[in-house]
């Protein structure tokens, strides 16, 4: 079987992970490790916040990258998992339960469960249908949350105390930052392993030629469903962090525009590129921050720039 797989990849496209220069990783990691205390202790909390948000959204974009970049499944409903993760913090906190392990477990398991149930239906479809049915499921969740009065409905819930782990309080901006950083590093490592593992190769294979993979004896549906569930669970973790970071949750977090923004981050960074989501999230947020400071009508520039970035192709990877 592995021989057959190897034979298939004789024609394979270059593996995205290889496209990224290793030399940039260390300096960048050092910067991300050392800059935050500097920002924090010089009173530049605003930029620390920006950096934290970028890393959280990078986790979400990374999970979407797994789906889009490796699996070729374009989901326009990924904001749903951010919502599930955030509400996994908000709802227990509403009842005075601040146990971080519980929040995290809820975020991961509920996201995975939602991904499994919806993925089982979505993956029966292809192409445009897939894009729009993922959107439909996230809209359903959105309207459900809007109508639950007990959890604030449209107003959402304020999180008065962030998740706490034994010996770890996310209350402190730096602690939260390093937790996000550690999670992102872990997911990047996992993603790299996965892309090189059999699972990742089968996914790539399914993306390029389902019929052929099936002929080789792989069950494309099950691999893709596993990828979909994994992606949802990782995005749930991003939601967990986002809930803690913003200190509140609301249905607006699940707005479909958020799903589109995540797709932008993926494609700006280069779909399938390991570090693409990180670059994409950073560029997206910095652009939004800079442009919105210039004029009230910044969407005009922003829209044009985004279009240019997409049309130019995947800016940050060469292959």
């Amino acid at each position, binding site marked *: 079987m592995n021989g057959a797989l190897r034979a298939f990849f004789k024609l394979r496209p270059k593996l995205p992970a290889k496209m*990224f*220069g290793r030399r*940039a*990783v260390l*300096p*960048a*990691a050092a*910067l*991300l490790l050392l800059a935050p205390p500097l*920002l924090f202790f*010089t*009173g*530049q*909390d*605003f*930029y620390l*916040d920006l950096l934290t*948000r*970028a890393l959280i959204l990078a986790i979400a974009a990374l999970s979407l990258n797994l789906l889009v970049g490796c699996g070729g499944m374009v989901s326009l409903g990924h904001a749903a998992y951010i919502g599930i993760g955030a509400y996994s913090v908000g709802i227990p906190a509403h009842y005075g339960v601040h146990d971080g392990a519980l929040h995290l477990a809820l975020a991961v398991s509920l996201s995975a469960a939602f991904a499994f149930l919806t993925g089982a239906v979505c993956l029966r479809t292809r192409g445009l249908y897939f894009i729009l049915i993922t959107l439909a499921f996230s809209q359903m969740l*959105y*309207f459900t949350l*809007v*109508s639950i*009065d007990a959890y*604030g*409905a*449209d*107003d*959402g819930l*304020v999180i*008065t105390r962030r998740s706490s782990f034994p010996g770890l309080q996310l209350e402190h901006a730096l602690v939260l930052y390093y937790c996000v950083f550690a999670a992102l590093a872990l997911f990047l490592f996992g993603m790299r392993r996965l892309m090189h593992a059999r699972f990742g190769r089968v996914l790539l294979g399914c993306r390029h030629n389902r019929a052929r993979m099936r002929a080789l004896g792989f069950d494309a549906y099950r691999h893709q469903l596993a990828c979909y569930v994994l992606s949802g669970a990782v995005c749930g973790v991003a939601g967990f962090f986002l809930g803690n970071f*913003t*200190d*509140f949750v*609301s*249905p*607006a*977090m699940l*707005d*479909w525009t958020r799903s589109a923004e995540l797709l932008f981050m993926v494609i700006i*960074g280069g779909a399938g*590129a390991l*570090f*693409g989501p*990180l*670059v994409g999230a*950073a*560029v997206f947020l*910095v*652009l939004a921050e*800079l442009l*919105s400071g210039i004029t*009230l009508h910044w*969407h005009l520039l922003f829209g044009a720039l985004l279009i240019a970035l997409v049309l130019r192709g995947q*800016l*940050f*990877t060469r292959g």
Partner: protein
Amino acid sequence: MSAAKKTPAAAVVSAALFVTTLFTGTFATRAAADDAPVKIGFVTTLTTPAGVIGADMKNAVELALEHLGGKMAGREVRVFFEDDAFKPEIGRQKTGKLIKRERVDFVAGYIWSHVLLASAKTVFDADKFLISANAGPSQLAGKGCHQNFFSTSWQNDQTPMALGEVLNRRGVKSLYVMLPNYAAGKNMLAGVERTFRGRVVGRDMTKWGRDRQLDFSAELAKAAASGADGLFIFYPGSAGGAFLKQYQQAGLKDRLPLYSVFTVDSLSLPRLQAAGIEGVLGSNSTMFWAPDLDNAANKKFVADFKARHGNYPSFYAAQSYDSVMLIDSALRATGGDLRDRDAVRAALRRADFASVRGDFRFGNNHFPVQNFYLREVVEDADGNWTTRITDLVYRGHQDPYAADCAR
């Protein structure tokens, strides 16, 4: 950020970020000095269709500053306007930017409850003062009240409570209710039900949010068939205009009298008049203020606002004007010194300024204890549609949540 090192475009972007960082870093350290300007952040909605509300509030803030000569207690004033784009998360981000980068002393504004709730913690954690110029969620009025929070508007329940009282006085026995299906909509319903003694014979909660429902045909047909004595609605912003048109087109004006809160205002009336929606003339709503309210401060405010912008100010504008005047009163009381937070807080609590609503005081939860009036839509001497006060509903009314506020 990592691969950013590799390509020119991203490198430029990251470089720009850090240059800005350094620049504002040096900037900020000077800000604490006493002769530095008083910094006020104002968060409102300037984009999306709700941007029309934000523009009105911004106009009022600028008018207030002009009336103050651009100074408070001899210090220059700088106002930073930020757009929340109608989203709580953006509102919180912008509030964080105002507090952490611009280092403002006061944050005011906030049209929407969810934006205010999402942003409040950021302001309180930094021990700054938060002044709501519109949103009045119960969460901040009762158990969750905060010593640094002040409102120059009202608590959500108060206006519909006054309306319920009006319905009782008019002998309305049965009521049909149509509201958007979100938290403030439900608050409005709860408010009316607190005081209305008749029966709510039917209610529809219509879809709200991004793809909100603007075609009310199904609900209007139900309301007409219900045989109720009156129709109570709450449709803020552009949805109000859409509703009123369809109300008129359904021919319900004589069969089902309309009672509304926060729907018919100086922003919607000129457009309704342009579109010839006569059905709104004579309709009733309750409010703490109206353009014709008789006091010196209000006369000056309304006259100058009209002279400058051509239309009547909305209640959003009135509240925003008052929020600036409230801040000014605190600075006057402390001689422009903001370092003693307790003294500033005590000064704010006294509300020692000429409000456009006339006399009022702050309750224990820092929401106004104030009068509520019945307003009717009429044509003014120049032929423009506006609201006119016809009755006093409540004198010195306090919201029902204040009792839960124990600080």
